[in-house]
């Protein structure tokens, strides 16, 4: 799949994960902006090579948004990366505390 929920905290029952490929994954924290619906699960583990467009499609499906509805993703609450940008690169440059925080919005928030 596009993204997996982040591993559960220690002590909780182990969830069986499908066999992983050798690509490394990064942790992403998704934050809703304005009156955009909030995702119940905010923390996701995503392959480095996943693109922003791939993430947008995933969030839209998860939030049950129509394909034609727009969804904007922002890094550092300051810029919207290109749809073909890989999350791994964004994590390298703009990640903090072991994760990449991305804000998502149905309308343009930061231009």
């Amino acid at each position, binding site marked *: 799949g596009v993204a997996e929920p982040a591993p559960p905290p220690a002590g909780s029952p182990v969830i069986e994960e499908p066999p992983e490929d050798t690509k490394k994954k990064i942790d992403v924290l998704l934050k809703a902006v304005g009156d955009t619906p909030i995702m119940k699960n905010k923390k996701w583990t995503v392959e480095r090579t996943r693109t922003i467009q791939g993430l947008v499609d995933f969030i839209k499906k998860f939030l049950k948004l129509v394909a034609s509805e727009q969804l904007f993703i922002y890094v*550092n609450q*300051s810029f*919207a*990366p290109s749809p*073909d940008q890989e999350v791994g*690169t964004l994590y*390298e*440059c703009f990640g903090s505390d072991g994760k990449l925080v991305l804000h998502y919005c149905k309308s343009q928030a930061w231009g």
Partner: protein
Amino acid sequence: MTDDKDVLRDVWFGRIPTCFMLYQDEITEREAEPYYLLLPRISYLTLVTDKVKKHFQKVMRQEDVTEIWFEYEGTPLKWHFPIGLLFDLHASNTALPWNITVHFKNFPEKDLLHCPSKDVIEAHFMACVKEADALKHKSQVINEMQKKDHKQLWMGLQNDKFDQFWAINRKLMEYPPEDSGFRYIPFRIYQVTTERPFIQKLFRPVAANGQLNTLGDLLKEVCPAAITPEDGEKKNQVMVHGIEPMLETPVQWLSEHMSYPDNFLHISIIPQPTD
């Protein structure tokens, strides 16, 4: 320094002589003549090819025309990469003019982003400028600017107005007097031979010992395969705006003088020509 300011002008006014030809399978009502154009290295294909589109649409039926897209020797050209980068990466060691094939059908969804309007180009350009400033100044300089200043950057690029553009862009090239340069250098390194689209990492212009980091230092850190070993044969060219800067060049200087208008250093690693 006068010399350094000249570099800014040389970069801005760089042009690539290009010959646009219609793809042979496009349906035309009569033969399509090639269209010749000098393309600005610093701009984007969909921003500067309105005349190309008009020229070929004249020989086609309205219903056969959908979104225009460009290809070079079978490779779709990403309009959201600057023209100079596309040329350096794909065609710099071939004879001029650059021969680009024009398509109006079968848009390659997997390879290209759509470009329905100039607004999309502006949004992409401004997003790159903002990302660059996030790296250089933690977005402080770009955020302090007014909307009209952002607009002036775009208008300067769109209308090929060097002074209009640099009146604002010079602020993005400043740094606090107590520092020796930007926080991090906005750069992207491209190679045709690899799977990944480009290399972009955090890289400081100044080393821990206070020395200015060079282009060679940058490559050693993020793309060591591009560097020729001590007694080895030179296998690659490291190209920016059609030239190979000396590896001793400080990256801070390169960032200030040879970035594209989006404030990124777009660097191509290409095979050394054999002749």
